[in-house]
């Protein structure tokens, strides 16, 4: 018995739903694009070689430290002993919190050390010294 071969296959891709698919992708990118960001303080970050990437933006909280010694968290200025309360609340609401310290390279270590102490008191122990990639 011979099998009849179907040669009359319809080989066209249906294009009628193409705009819908494209619109879906468009909407996805529109939704995931974050436009609002905290502006922070004007700083120039130090450069380092052995850097790691921060895993997720959702679990990251920034502390800006300018060379004048100002501390800014989410566009609010704090004194060095005010960091504790803010970071503690953040830490409680998000146990995976990683603090990204965006400090100016000319910031004084006295202040950075104060922030270390504050973060330890707030139990926000995962810290990341934000820096640029150094090129030799």
């Amino acid at each position, binding site marked *: 018995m011979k099998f009849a071969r179907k040669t009359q296959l319809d080989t066209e891709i249906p294009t009628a739903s193409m*705009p819908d698919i494209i619109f879906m992708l*468009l909407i996805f990118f529109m939704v995931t694009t974050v436009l609002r960001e905290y502006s922070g303080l004007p700083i120039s970050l130090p450069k*380092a070689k052995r850097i790691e990437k921060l895993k997720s933006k959702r679990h990251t909280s920034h502390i800006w430290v300018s060379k004048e010694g100002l501390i800014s968290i989410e566009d609010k200025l704090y004194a060095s002993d005010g960091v504790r309360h803010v970071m503690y609340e953040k830490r409680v609401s998000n146990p995976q919190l990683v603090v990204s310290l965006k400090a100016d390279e*000319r910031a004084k270590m006295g202040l950075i050390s104060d922030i270390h102490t504050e973060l*330890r008191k707030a139990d926000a122990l995962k810290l*990341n010294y934000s820096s*640029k990639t150094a090129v030799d």
Partner: protein
Amino acid sequence: MAKKRRFKGGAIPTSSMADIAFLLLIFFLVTTTIDMDKGLGMVLPAEGEEIEINKKNILNCLINSTGNILLGGEVVEVRNLSKTVRQKLAENDKLIISVKAHKASNYLDYVKVIDQLKQANATRISIAESN
């Protein structure tokens, strides 16, 4: 002379819709930046977690206000720091490097030191409070 107005089919052409959608898609694809923050990772010790360590397992690294580095009593250049620390780690793998910076020293010098220590694969880094 009055012109005759005739109604022509008022349909919007939908054939170029896909092209328009594609253009918008490409625009958002290009403008979306998934830039992740980069930096030197560090885990601070918990509050009140001070452990006594044998003195010979501690390597003190001091940074003064002008950015000079004193490693275990000897002045070391920043760029030679990783090499020296690597040697010392090879001699004693239990070594803990205690970094202590002067209050008035620059954050940049501190980051440089931490970077050098990371390059030497030093995992036990302790940050002493500057005073």
